[in-house]
């Protein structure tokens, strides 16, 4: 069997637990790391103030669960809605929750001082999206790095929501001291107010997508994040929760000829004004504005009028436009499918911290093992290459791109999928396939006509093929 990063992390964790069994604090920490390693992937949604973090969480969960408080709020899957407050240095307390129309409201005690650390709130909520991952809503990522440091300690992966790609908004993402290259294999950047690009004109989202792609391929950003996705959180969330009444109102709008309506969709004042030609009353219009924004109203009415979107198809179309599908794909491909790697990485980092905090006379070998695993973990390199191929930062021929993604586990981690034959594969055939691939990519790795970047990618694929060969050899012996 290949020694995966997860295996090594597990081995190192258990070794460390044995080593520190006489040390209560350290042992607790190790046990906590082991629990975390076995638990669900933790994804933090963070970003600067007013960047739409909570809206993005609502869009991802599909219900209105955020925002809850000012501190860190964890959303995990649970059979019944529940909220527990963990104030710093005090016993946990259950918080009363009420189900509201589209989600949940948590009664946060008003006595929490605004400037003190409000502690953490854990919200249990039955949702499919939370089955494989815990989402963490965080306070605004400020420049002093306090929030980001805690995010990096608590979460395995980060979705960083930012209203613009201006450097000032991205400062909290800058690599901290001592971070290794490729340290950000755990970050997806989200242009979270994509619907506001270019004054919310009708093609705002495509404009945002263009920006996202441009950022994704920029050389300057290499290693700072895995990929950039443009998402309108508001649109996405509303699309997932669009009600019949709302659709009816939108349909009534769309029934009006476009030219008549255009003047009234110019501004929010005109849309909610008295002289509105459509028999939709003002409160409904105001509610629509809250739910979709002016951009959403324009887009939805256009979609109904020109594409004939029905109540069944409109949410899908809106969702597609919102960019949430791309975000979910990215999260699945880069985070969820690779959760073993990401969690192993978190565990190793936690372990490294523990060894530094509680030095142990025999820990030399352990810390060497941790450093080696973190530095040489081939899976981390696979993950970085996968994101690079995905974003188009590394360009190979179409055929090669597909093969590379397959071989480094972009479609699935098991041998069959990697070799392009998911059904039963006899070992001899598998060996031949692997060796062919190995030969091909080795050639690429030494091909002087390719760019350095392409050759680096080829070297990573070669290393993956070698790993496959080792694994096959072990299987044979058994």
């Amino acid at each position, binding site marked *: 069997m290949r020694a995966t990063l997860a295996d090594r992390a597990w081995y190192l964790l258990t070794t460390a637990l044995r080593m520190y069994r006489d040390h209560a604090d350290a042992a607790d920490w190790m046990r906590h790391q082991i629990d975390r390693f076995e638990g669900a992937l933790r994804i933090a949604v963070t970003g600067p103030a007013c960047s739409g973090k909570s809206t993005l969480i609502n869009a991802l969960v599909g219900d209105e669960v955020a925002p809850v408080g000012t501190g860190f709020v964890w959303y995990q899957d649970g059979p019944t809605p529940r909220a527990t407050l963990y104030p710093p240095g005090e016993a946990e307390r259950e918080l009363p929750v009420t189900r509201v129309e589209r989600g949940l409201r948590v009664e946060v005690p008003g006595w929490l001082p605004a400037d003190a650390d409000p502690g953490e709130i854990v919200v249990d909520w039955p949702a499919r999206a939370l089955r494989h991952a815990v989402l963490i809503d965080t306070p605004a990522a400020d420049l002093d790095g306090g929030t980001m440091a805690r995010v990096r300690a608590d979460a395995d992966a980060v979705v960083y929501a930012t*209203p*613009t790609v*201006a450097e000032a*908004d991205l400062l909290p993402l800058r690599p901290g001291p001592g971070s290794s290259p490729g340290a950000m294999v755990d970050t997806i950047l989200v242009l979270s107010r994509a619907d506001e690009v270019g*004054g919310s004109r009708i093609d705002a989202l495509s404009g*945002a997508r263009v920006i996202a792609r441009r950022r994704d391929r920029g050389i300057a950003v290499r290693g700072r994040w895995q990929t950039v996705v443009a998402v309108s959180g508001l649109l996405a969330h509303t699309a997932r929760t669009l009600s019949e009444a709302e659709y009816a109102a939108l349909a009534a709008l769309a029934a009006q000829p476009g030219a008549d309506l255009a003047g009234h969709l*110019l*501004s929010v004042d005109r849309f909610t004004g008295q002289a509105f030609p459509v028999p939709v009353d003002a409160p409904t219009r105001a509610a629509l504005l809250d739910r979709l*924004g002016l*951009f959403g109203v324009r887009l939805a009415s256009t979609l109904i009028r020109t594409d004939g979107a029905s109540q069944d198809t409109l949410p899908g179309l809106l969702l597609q436009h919102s960019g949430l599908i791309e975000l979910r794909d990215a999260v699945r491909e880069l985070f969820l499918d690779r959760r073993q790697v990401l969690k192993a990485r978190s565990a190793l980092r936690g372990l490294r911290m523990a060894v530094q905090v509680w030095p142990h006379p025999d820990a030399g070998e352990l810390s060497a093992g941790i450093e080696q695993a973190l530095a040489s973990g081939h899976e981390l390199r696979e993950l970085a290459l996968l994101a690079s191929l995905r974003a188009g930062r590394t360009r190979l021929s179409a055929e090669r791109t597909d093969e590379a993604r397959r071989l480094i586990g972009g479609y699935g981690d098991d041998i069959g999928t990697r070799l392009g034959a998911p059904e039963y594969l006899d070992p001899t055939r598998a060996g031949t396939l692997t060796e062919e691939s190995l030969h091909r990519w080795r050639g690429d790795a030494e091909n002087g006509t390719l760019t350095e970047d392409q050759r680096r990618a080829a070297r990573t694929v070669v290393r993956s093929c070698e790993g496959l060969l080792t694994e096959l050899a072990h299987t044979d012996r058994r």
Partner: protein
Amino acid sequence: MATFWLDVLDETIRACAAHGRTDLAHELQHRRAQLLDPRLRVLVVGAPKQGKSQLVNALLNAPACPVGDDLTTTVPTVVEYADEPSGVQATDPVAHQVVGVPRQLLRAGLVLVDMPPLGRAGPADALLATADAVLLVSDAGTGLSAGEVEFLRYAVQRCPTVILALTKIDLAPRWRQVAERTRMRLAQAGLNTPVVPVSAALRLRAAGTDDVALNAESGFPELVGRLQREVSTKAQRLAPHTAAVLTATAIESLVAPLVAEHATPPAEHTTAALQLRDLQHRHDGLRRHASRWQSALADDISDLVSDIEYDLRDRTRRVLRTVDEFFDVADPALAWDSFVPWLEENLRYAGQANFAWLVQRSHWIATRIAADFAGYRPEVLPESTFWPAADAFGGVAELERPALGEFTLGQKVFTGLRGSYGGLVMFGLLTSVAGLPLINLVSLGAGALFGSKSLRDEGSSRLLRRQSAAKAAVQRHVEDFFLKFSKDCRDVARQVHRTLRDHFLTLAEDLQEEIADAARLAKDTADRAAVEQDRRRQELQREFDGLVALRHKTRLLTTAATAGVAA
């Protein structure tokens, strides 16, 4: 009015130059020229993606600045009037481009500067000093951020005319609340910045369709009106107002160091005064010390004399005792010649030891007194503590040989004969009874016997006499020695006393004079320092008064300018 603000500004410039703040003077000079320029430069600033360039375009109804979905404006764009549309690149003071647009709004002298986003380090700072007014652009969707308030606070110090444009009100459902909140926030921050909600999209569309109502909805007419009013009344309102703020800021920065200097408490204990006090203290100490050391010296010397005398007496007595014992046994006649060097030797030794002690003691006395002076001057020992008188220890008489009464041969014969005569006669008579002649063998024998006895008796009595004579002679000699030597010692001690007294008296006088001199000097210095301090304080007060007068004028100017603004 126009001349008044210029007067105040000029006076402030002069004050800056007078206070050595040429940088401030230079900057104000620059601003002065700018305020006299009829054109109005408006800096359009704001965070990224707030719609700054679009705002400029909407103001002019012309695509003067490029707009885009991504970050677009990277260098400042100066938009000014031109008969024909034009565009040039320039690099002074920072890289920027100049765009000429034929628009009526600009003709009156309005110049718009579209700035790159405010960031960590931008050219905003350098350009802020060249602007007459600032137009801060903020998205109505998000409201004013802490950074924007901070920037406003900073900007009004350098450029008091600031307008806040809340953009994109066509998209923000709650822009009215946001505007209200923004106004309250500004009021809390102590800024009376007007807030103008606008929508560039509506304005541009209104221009495209000639829709007057839509144009009114866009909020731009108010913004345009404000800008036009600022341009047309620049000399009457904006210039005095700006001058008031600039001069106030400049004067504050001039006053601050003065106030700081004034606030430092006058150093009551300047170094000179401290030194003076110290010197007086030393002087008093020295005077107290003078009487003490003199009596100590006298006591020491009298102790010394008595000790030395006793020591010498003791030593000579011991010599005498030895001599007595010696001459109880020895015959001075035989031993005298070898005895004399021994005695001289012993006496010399006694004298030397005694004298050495004297030297040692006098040195010790000198050291002890010198130690008392050590606090005033480090090396105060006299060069030598011992000056023997020229004739000291010279005049002890030679030990004269006493009359020892030598037993000469004639005397011996005579004595023997005298003794033997008695015996001879006595026994001759006795034997003559027996019939023997007077001179016979017996009488001869007896005569011989008697002769020898009397010879012996005579010898021993003479020895005793010699011995006592020798003892007496030695005693006399030693007494002489003692008398002479002790006198010399006493003289030397007195000499030492006198020398030490003179030496230390001179030293004390010296020191006293020295300290008095130093004290005089220190007093002079302290007086001068006090005078200087007084002068500096008066000067400070004068400078301060000048600045206060100037500040008063500035306040007048501010009041007038505010009244003008209100009018």
